[in-house]
Every structure is written in C-alpha cells, then in structure tokens.
C-alpha cells in the first residue's frame, strides 16, 4: 500500500515537473450540437466552432486542443481549470457573465425558434409542454413563461421528446433545429415567431484570465473585419443567417 502510494506520488510529481515552453490552450466543447460542434462518423470533433477555434489559435500562434465535456458541468470545469476556454454555442447572458467572462461575440444574436409536429397548434407556445436543454437561455425563457418546461441534458433528447409526444414543441437555436426540419420532409415544422435572446454567442474564459480574453477578442474582431468570420458562418449555417 505504502509502496504504491509512493510510486503514485512520484508519477504525479514527474508529470507535474514535465512542463515545457509552449503552453497548450485547452478548449472545452460539448460535441453534441451540430453544426456548432459535433462528433462526425470518423470520431473527430468538427463544426463551426472547431474551424473558428483552430483559425483563432493559428492566428494567435497558440497550440490548441479540444476537450469534450458534458454540457451541465461545462462551466464548473472551466473555473476549476480543467480547460481554459469554452466554445460550445454558449450565448452570452447576464447570469453566465457573473461566473465566467466572455470574449466579444463570434455569432450575432441568433434566433431561437419553436419546433413541433406538423399539425401542432401554435398556441402550445403559451400553454403547452416545451422541451428544452437544461442550463440554456431557452430553458430560462420557458421557465419565465407560462408554458410547462421539460428539461433534457442533451439537445438530441429534446427532439425525441417532440417526436414521441412527450412535449408539444421544442425551443432551441433555430440553426440547430433547421437540419431536423429539413430532413423530416414536412413532419416537423417551426411554430410561431422567432425569438432573439442573449447577446450572441461568445467564447467563455475564466474571469481572471484577462490576457487570454483580450487575445481571443482581438482576433475575433480581426476576423469580423476581414470577412473571414462571415465566410465560416456561411460555410456552416448557410447564408440565411445574420452575419457581421
């Protein structure tokens, strides 16, 4: 017992003293939210945010690595230092800004929409059961409204809830729902009007990490100026969405 604990301590000490020159910036993402970030069939993390993050790192001359983390614990793991940045389709909100800080937005305030089965009466928005992913801006909207909220840990489960009748509609980012509406061949439709919650999507960093936030913000601004950010947005979301 003693011997193993000694070796363990030695191993940890060795790992800890092996620090080298170039620091790696670790970026946490969910990997379950196409087209922002998802795992493709080749088991690679891909998506709009992956392309954007890699481009930011290239321009800032940082070595970056992607880390997958469950959505519900994505903020606690950032503040305890398990990774340094969150890029996970996270809307910039007041409540989150009290815990972490955000770079400037890399997506303009994007629409949220209700989606339901084709013959659903739009009044369910007011008085029905609405599926949302927990800890999202949409979950906040539903909690403040009159409809009953039904929360799920992953975005995929909110869609299933609508399909199997557990919920009347789902409220989520419109660009996430768009692919489901398109693929369903008329089975799923958008209901009611779009909402524009939050101040857009940004990268989250620890509040004490001023330097990193400044670096990321500067490059995102640069990419807004030279149009390369818009190109990425069109590449992943099509040209129907707000650009800079």
């Amino acid at each position, binding site marked *: 017992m003693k011997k193993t604990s000694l070796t363990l301590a030695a191993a940890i*000490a060795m790992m*800890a*003293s092996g620090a080298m020159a170039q620091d790696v910036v670790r970026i946490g993402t969910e990997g379950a939210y196409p087209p922002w970030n998802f*795992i493709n069939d*080749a088991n690679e993390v891909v998506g709009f945010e992956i392309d954007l993050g890699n481009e930011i790192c290239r321009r800032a001359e940082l070595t970056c690595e992607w880390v997958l983390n469950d959505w519900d614990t994505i903020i606690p793991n950032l503040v305890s*230092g398990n990774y340094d940045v969150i890029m996970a389709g996270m809307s910039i909100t007041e409540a989150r800004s009290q815990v972490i800080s955000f770079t400037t937005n890399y997506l303009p305030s994007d629409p949220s929409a209700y989606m339901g089965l084709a013959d659903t009466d739009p009044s369910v928005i007011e008085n029905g059961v609405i599926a949302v992913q927990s800890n999202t801006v949409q979950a906040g909207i539903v909690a403040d409204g009159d409809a009953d909220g039904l929360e799920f840990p*992953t975005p995929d489960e909110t869609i299933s809830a609508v399909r199997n009748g557990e919920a009347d509609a789902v409220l989520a980012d419109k660009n996430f729902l768009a692919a*489901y509406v398109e693929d369903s061949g008329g089975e799923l439709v958008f209901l009611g009007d779009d909402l524009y919650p939050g101040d857009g999507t940004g990268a989250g960093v*620890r*509040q004490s990490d001023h330097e990193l936030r400044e670096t990321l913000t500067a490059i995102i601004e640069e990419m807004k100026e030279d149009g390369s950010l818009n190109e990425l947005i069109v590449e992943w979301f099509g040209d129907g969405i707000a650009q800079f």
Partner: protein
Amino acid sequence: MFSFCIEPATLPQWQWFACYLTTATHLQFYRSFGVVLVLLAITAPVALGMGMLGALALRARLWPVRLVGQGYVNLVRGVPDIVFFLFVPIALGQGIEWVLHHINCPDWEQPIRQGNDFIVCREAKVPPNNAARWVFELYAFIMAVVAFALVFGAFVANTLYGAMQAVPRAQVETAEAYGMTRGQAFRRVVMPQMWVYALPGLSNIWQILIKATPLLFLLGIQDAVYWARELGGQKTSLYAYPHPDWRMWYFLALLCFYLLLTWGSERVFARLNDRLSHGQATAAGERLRKAAA
C-alpha cells in the same frame, strides 16, 4: 473500413450497414465496453481493499481509528452517489493541485481562489498543461477508479464488518484457548471463515457497481451508455450516415451486455459460495456435507 465505403449515400442496404457499423465512432463504441470491463476489474479489488481497511477500522480497539471508520462508512453511504461522483474528481483534483502549488511555487503571490476561479501555477497543474491526450484520459480514469472505490469501499466495509461479527464467537474462544493472540485468532480463524457470510452482501455490491458504471460519463469518460446515446440519436444529413432515432436498438444492445455481465457474475458467485461453504457450520455447508456422503 471497407473499400466500398467512400460514398455511403449510394450504397445498397447491407453495404451501408457494414460501413455504418464500422465507422470510427462505432469502433469507439465497441471499445467502450472494454473500458467498462477494465474499470470493473480494477475498481472491484480496490474497493475490496478500501472496504477491508474500513472494516478493520470499525473493529479497531483505539477509539480515534474507530471514529474514522464510522465517519467514512456513514458519511459516504449517506451521500447520494451522483453528488459524490461530481464532488470527488473536482475536489480531489483541486486538492492535489493545491498541495503541488505550495510545494513547487512558494513564491507565487496571487491567491489560488480568485472569485469563482481556481488558479494554481503551471508547475502544479495535474496533468501538466501540455501533456498528451492519453495522459488526461488516464488521469480521468484514475479519478473514476478512486471515486468508485471510495463509494463502494464504504458499502464493502459495512458488509465485511458484519461478516466478521457473524463468525461464531465459540470459534474465537477456541482459538484463544489454544493460546492464540487476538491478531492470530483474527487471521487464522475469523478471516478465512467470514467470507461465506460476506458473499451475499458482496455480490449485491458487485451488481450495483456494474449498474453504476454509466455514471462514468459524469467523470468525462465516454462509456458504453454515452456512445449508445450519442450514436443512437437522430443524425441529420450533416452526418455521413444520417438515420432517425435508433436509440432503442442501441439500448437493446446495452441491455444484452449488462444482462450477460450480471448473469455471468451470478454464476461465478454461486460457485464461489459452494467453495467457501465447504466445511462451514452453515446450512449450505451442511448440504454439501450431505451431498458428499
């Protein structure tokens, strides 16, 4: 995987499935069953060790040791597992980094806790910031083993403690009459006999441990349940192999896996019970004696 998999959308059905079931993510899914088995294979003996220490602490003559044992067993059994699994990796991780920070960076001026943030110097990072990906994965796995062993060790401790008490007092008295010390009596008489009393409880804990492995994903490990959920969910045309919600089939596969696992371990426990009951003054031991005669 296969040479014909280049353009999945145009394939006939059997080829499409052959390609689909051998994508990199599916291979990862198959591997995750191995991860679950490895975790079980490592966690079970470690938890048994923790439990043995806990049981010995509960029996200790020194009251502070007894108090530690009671504190461990009652505290851990009282807290919901899920809280523990969220708490242990973050608290333990921060604890290790805190200690290393004080050893490696005595000159550091900033506070470790700044508002919500937990910040240590880079020499104190575990794993170090630029370690390879597998180091991070190994670290997460070790954290998982520790968390599981802590939780299940507490249950094992109570079971073993009960089993030690169940060994007939007369046996210990006889050992003492032969002039054995307390320690000798424990090692030679109590220890070998207690297992048969502990076995039903241990097999319960083992089955619960098997069923608790899906909690692994909370610890950042992609286990079989995570992959079943991820792969089974509806895939839109953004993916190379779009399909509707197939979670039922994936969960059915999981069901078979877990049933097989529990069925197999039931059989192992039944055989163990037979072996341990040999020559014991229990009903099962009596049956064996009669069967042999």
